[in-house]
């Protein structure tokens, strides 16, 4: 009974971590620097939010499938593949959840007064020091709120995960896949149980994110 929940939490946690790191780096670049192709990269970073997850899954197969651009190299050199593994499921969920971190972090970084960073510069503090001691502390609420939404999104991921990792009970079958499976089998009680668990997890996350997003008194 617990396996799909624990697997979902593992996959969603790993996915959120990946989305967090990539999202913060991308948001920082887009929010701070003006460079050619910036709009294109901005659009690409937002794309997973509007594209069907199955299409994203297809792209991922092209990339990391055993004959994919990156996947072939991984398979031939290292003998590993991400296809039909929980790590592959996490990668798929990370791609789908990434725009939520990116959007939240970008708005948060753009909300930080650039003059404060300028002041820190004249005080001799390095750029990385400024990011860690000024920018991030002032933007963390927005970053964290985006991260919680990303976790919620990763928890419910279905389409891209199915394409990349399949639906293997105990290995890649997350909650949302298990719900589909249970309904197909006609096991309505198990489906209802899984739906209740998923709903509780998602509502809890949204309440937490809403609290963080509320303006400070």
């Amino acid at each position: 009974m617990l396996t799909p929940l624990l697997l979902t939490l593992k996959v969603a946690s790993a996915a959120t971590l990946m989305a967090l790191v990539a999202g913060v780096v991308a948001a920082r670049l887009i929010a701070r620097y003006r460079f050619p192709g910036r709009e294109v990269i901005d659009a690409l970073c937002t794309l997973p939010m509007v594209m069907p997850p199955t299409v994203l899954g297809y792209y991922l197969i092209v990339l990391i499938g055993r004959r994919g651009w990156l996947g072939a190299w991984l398979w031939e050199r290292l003998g590993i593949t991400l296809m039909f593994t929980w790590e592959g499921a996490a990668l798929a969920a990370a791609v789908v959840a990434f725009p939520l971190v990116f959007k939240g972090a970008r708005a948060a970084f753009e909300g930080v007064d650039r003059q404060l960073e300028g002041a820190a510069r004249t005080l001799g503090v390095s750029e990385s020091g400024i990011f860690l001691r000024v920018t991030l502390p002032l933007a963390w609420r927005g970053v964290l709120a985006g991260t919680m939404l990303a976790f919620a999104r990763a928890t419910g991921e279905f389409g891209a995960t199915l394409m990349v990792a399949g639906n293997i009970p105990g290995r890649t079958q997350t909650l949302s896949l298990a719900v589909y499976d249970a309904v197909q089998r006609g096991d309505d009680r198990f489906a209802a149980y899984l739906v209740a668990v998923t709903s509780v997890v998602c509502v809890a996350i949204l309440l937490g994110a809403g609290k963080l997003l509320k303006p400070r008194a």
Partner: protein
Amino acid sequence: MSRPWVRVDVHKTLRARDRAFHLDTAFETDSDRIVVFGPSGSGKTALIQCIAGLMTPDEGVVRVGGRTLFDSGAGIDLPPQERRVGYLFQDYALFPHLTVEENVGFALRPGLSGRLGEAERKRVRDALAAFDLESHARSLPRQISGGQRQRVALARALIVKPEILLLDEPLSALDSPLRERVRGELLAIQQRFAVPMIVITHDPADAAVLGRMVVVQREGKVVG
């Protein structure tokens, strides 16, 4: 000591939508109290940002005390971190998430980690005492008055012993009874820390009291 102490010669075209603004300002002086006087919109802030390294001139030279901070001909453009220029922002730019003492000691912790050492903590205490801020050490910037905020910003800038102090309209945010007093305080600070300063202002009274050398700027050009 190299002469002149300060040499500024900056040219920059700033564009906002379809308008272009040309900053062409040059002066050199041995004075330790320079006032750049001009109406708002005359490019005064852009000028001191070019000196501090927060804005890059299209071409020109900035020299302070024998060090070349910027020289487009020689390809020199020191980052603001290496310029040793103190900058008092018009609205002070205090870090809102840090206490008064953390703001003052901000520059003493240039690394990524850790607390201040004992020697640094003593420097912060001394600076707080010098600026009469001891009783507000643990306050956040939003909890103290405008005059106190300005003293925090000055203490923060001066604790690293800059070679020159740039002040952007240091009196405009204060109400007029306070202005008179702060003018006197600024002069006292300048003497006490023996730091040359460049003050930009649109107030003739500031120019008269604070300036030994007054540069009059209008529409990006020096006119007197």
